[in-house]
C-alpha cells in the first residue's frame, strides 16, 4: 500500500515539474529577445563599455540592479510567495578568494569574447554558430576548474 502511494507521489511531482519548465522557457525567451534587441550580446557594445566609449551598458546594468533591488525589497516587505505558495528565500553569498581571482579571469575572458555565459546562448541563437565553439570551450573551462577545485584554494 505504501509503495503505491509513493509511486503516485513521484508521478505527481514529475508532472508538476514539467509544467514549471514552461515558465522558465518563456522567461528565457523574453530574456534572450531583450539581450539581442538592446545589443547587450554585441561584442562591439562590450568593447565600448570597457573603453568607456558609451554609457549604454552601464545604463542597462544600473537599471537592472535598481529594478531587481526594488522588486526584492517589495517581495520581502509584502512577504510575496511563489506561484505554488512557497516562501521565497534568497541564499546569502559567502566571500571567497575566487570572487577576486576568478572574477579577474572571467573579466579577461569577457573582454575577449564580448560575452558572459548568458549572451553566449543568445549569440548562438542569432546564427553566430561559431560561438558554439566558445561555449564548448567555456564548458571545458568550468570542467577544468571543477577538476582542480580540490587543489585550488578558495575560501
Amino acid at each position, binding site marked *: 500500500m505504501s509503495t503505491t502511494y509513493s509511486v503516485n507521489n513521484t508521478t505527481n511531482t514529475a508532472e508538476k515539474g514539467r509544467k514549471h519548465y514552461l515558465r522558465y522557457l518563456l522567461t528565457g525567451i523574453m530574456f534572450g529577445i531583450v539581450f539581442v534587441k538592446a545589443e547587450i550580446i554585441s561584442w562591439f557594445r562590450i568593447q565600448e563599455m570597457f573603453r568607456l566609449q558609451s554609457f549604454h551598458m552601464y545604463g542597462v546594468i544600473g537599471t537592472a540592479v535598481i529594478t531587481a533591488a526594488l522588486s526584492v525589497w*517589495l517581495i520581502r516587505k509584502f512577504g510575496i510567495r511563489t506561484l505554488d505558495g512557497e516562501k521565497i528565500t534568497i541564499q546569502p553569498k559567502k566571500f571567497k578568494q575566487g570572487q577576486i581571482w576568478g572574477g579577474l579571469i572571467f573579466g579577461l575572458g569577457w573582454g575577449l569574447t564580448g560575452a558572459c555565459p548568458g549572451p553566449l546562448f543568445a549569440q548562438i541563437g542569432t546564427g553566430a554558430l561559431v560561438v558554439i565553439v566558445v561555449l564548448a570551450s*567555456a564548458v571545458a573551462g568550468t570542467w*577544468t576548474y571543477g577538476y582542480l577545485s580540490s587543489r585550488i584554494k578558495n575560501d
Partner: protein
Amino acid sequence: MSILKEPWPWYVAGILIGLTVPVLLIAGNKQFGISANLRHICASCFPGKVSFFRYDWRKERWNLVFAAGILIGGYIAATFLSNGQDIKVNPELVQQLKSYGITDYSNMVPRQLFNFGSLLTLRGWVMLVGGGFLVGFGTRYAGGCTSGHSIMGLSTLQWPSLVATICFMAGGFIMANLILPFILAL
C-alpha cells in the same frame, strides 16, 4: 511593430532584465544565475570522478531550460525583430577596429573575427577558444557571472558580489585596453 525592430534603449532593457530576478523567484524560488549551467552541463554529460560535478543536476534542469529559452529568444529577435541595419557604435571604436581589419557591423559579433575559418588563425583561436575557456573557468571560480553576482547579488546587497563585479570589470578593462590590441594585431 516598427518600434520593436529598432534597437531598444538601455532603460527598457535594464528594467526587463531586472524583472527577471523577481519573475524567477516568484515562478519557483529560483536564483538568477546563468553560469551555473556550464557546471550543470559538465555534471550531466561528463562528471568523471570529480566530486565538484557529483550532485543532483536534475534539480537544476529549470536553469538549462531557461538557457535554452535564451537561445530561442536570440533566434526570434534576429529573425523576426531585426531592422537589418548595422550596429551603431562610437566612431572612435570604429576607427580603432578598422586598423585591425574589423569593419563589418552587420552582426552582433564581428564577422571578421567570429567565423569558423578564423579558428585556423592564432588570433581567432586565442579569442574564441582561449576567451571561452577563461569565461568558463573564471565564472565558476568566482561562483557566478554577471547575472548571479552583478544583478542578483548586487540587488540583494551582498558585498561579496560587489567584490566580484569590481573584479569582472577590472579584468575587462585590462583585456580591452591593454592586452586585446596585441591579440587583434596577431
